């Protein structure tokens, strides 16, 4: 118990240091660093969000990019029709959550692989809607979002802090769920759904809650992203690569844990940057290979590996 508490303290300390570093980045690094950090914060939000359904509840969702794109389009459409940026973000969040809630009623009846395929279909359907509903979404030509006034440097900071703030809110939600009845119930569902149901866990309600949580902040992230890059189109927003990248990040760090997704995002992004620069021609192939190796060699994620190393060191110290 105390060992676990100590590890949590270390985790919180590292997250705290990370937050301070990112917050000071406009003074420490250049525009490129700010851009990378904004990206990392958005991915932390998505990874923590996916962890609710994929990690705690054990339902492998591939709908993350669908929610991201949904939020992006919702925010962009509202902004092009004259709504100011912040209210548009808020509205996009709510609309995405409602969409996820309605969706949850249907696809959460599926289990295991069937659920995975069902959630994938959602991504394709939303993408199709965005590509064909030209009147609303601009179709294949995409949408231009009003650019934030004040110059690129100022805008860079605004989006950095927005992404950082969102990541922090998501982390707070994850912390709450991790320690609440909801998190406990979701862990039961992951291990044995029918046994959980028999023990009094209202599995349908909890699964929908987890699914909505997996979409809520991702919707905001999409809206922030749309305002940040100021141009969105269907192929960019509903990318299969992203919908796979997010779960891989969580698995890399440690699914169903509080700190795992954060660790996974940071590790993955560093890895990607490294591979990107060293293998310019074949980077996706190398990245894919690394992902396969990591998932097979590290079933519990980096967090589990660190735990095991720590235990071994403790055992050696005791001997």
């Amino acid at each position, binding site marked *: 118990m105390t060992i676990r508490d100590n590890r949590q303290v270390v985790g919180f300390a590292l997250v705290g240091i990370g937050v301070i570093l990112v917050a000071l980045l406009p003074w420490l690094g250049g525009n490129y660093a700010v851009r990378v950090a904004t990206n990392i914060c958005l991915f932390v939000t998505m990874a923590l969000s996916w962890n609710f359904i994929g990690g705690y509840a054990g339902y492998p969702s591939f709908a993350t990019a669908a929610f991201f794109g949904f939020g992006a389009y919702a925010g962009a459409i509202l902004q092009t029709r004259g709504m100011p940026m912040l209210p548009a973000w808020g509205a996009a969040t709510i609309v995405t959550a409602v969409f996820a809630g309605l969706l949850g009623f249907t696809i959460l009846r599926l289990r295991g692989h069937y659920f995975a395929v069902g959630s994938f279909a959602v991504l394709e359907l939303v993408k199709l809607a965005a590509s064909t509903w030209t009147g609303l979404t601009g179709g294949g030509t995409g949408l231009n979002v009003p650019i934030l006034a004040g110059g690129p440097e100022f805008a860079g900071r605004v989006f950095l802090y927005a992404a950082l703030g969102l990541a922090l809110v998501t982390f707070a939600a994850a912390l709450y769920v991790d*320690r*609440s*009845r909801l998190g*406990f*119930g979701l*862990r*039961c569902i992951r*291990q*044995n759904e*029918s*046994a*959980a*149901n*028999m*023990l*009094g*866990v*209202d*599995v349908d309600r909890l699964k929908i809650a987890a699914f909505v949580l997996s979409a809520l902040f991702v919707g905001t992230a999409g809206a922030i992203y749309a305002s940040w890059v100021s141009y969105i189109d269907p192929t960019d927003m509903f990318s299969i690569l992203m919908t796979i990248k997010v779960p891989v990040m969580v698995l890399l760090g440690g699914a169903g844990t509080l700190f795992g997704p954060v660790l996974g995002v940071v590790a993955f992004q560093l890895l990607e940057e490294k591979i990107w620069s060293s293998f310019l021609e074949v980077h996706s192939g190398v990245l894919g290979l690394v992902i396969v190796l990591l998932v097979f060699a590290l079933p519990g994620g980096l967090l589990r590996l660190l735990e095991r190393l720590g235990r071994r060191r403790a055992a050696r110290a005791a001997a």
Partner: protein
Amino acid sequence: MSADVILEVRNLSKTFGGVRAVDNVSLSLARGEIVGLIGPNGAGKTTLVNLMTGVLPATSGTVIFEGLDVTRQKPHQAARRGLARTFQIVQPFPDMTVLENVTAGTLFAAGASSIRAAREEAREHLQFVGLGRLADTLARTLTLPDRKHLELAKSLAMRPRVLMLDEVNAGLNSGEIDAALDLIRRISARGVTILIIEHLMKVVFSLSHRICVLHQGALICQGKPAEVAKDERVIRAYLGSRFAERHKGLVGNG
């Protein structure tokens, strides 16, 4: 029926395709009673329990708990009402500790006010079934007898009014069975009504106040253990004539 009935099923049937797994069964449990449910494999015993706890929807008939029609309840509602059951094949949450397994029951079915309170209550149940020393071990590392005890602790954690025990003694040796019998008697002494499904006649005949016999989905006989052991249909369908001879003595004191 009398006011003492806590759980009653009326004309309950369940068909799977063309098979009538449970065929027009009516029976009731009186408060505080221990009722044995026996019958050959495939007689529909587990299906009956599944119908009573909302795991399967009934094809026809009603389930009445405390005067309330609960035929269409979901499993979690049954659990919260105090209709608890154990599984023939034990189903722990393998990667949780023994204590966490039981805490799930006190938290979700018994409605403990906080996780901390649920954990404290779970500890008491673990002590009661004799698993206190294993509270912090992972459930998947338990031996079979310990898993059976964990299953019992989990169902006790739900503060059951009616407890359905589906072969909790299968696979145990005779020493372990004696301990389990003692445990079931102590649970009954707390005022819990018990429906026990068993193939071990020693267990059923020594515990039950009343025995119900299912055969091919239908209730063919119910009554005091001594009467049931002598019933021609039961002997033909299930017990066998050798049992009837050998166990005349055993059921005499039931």
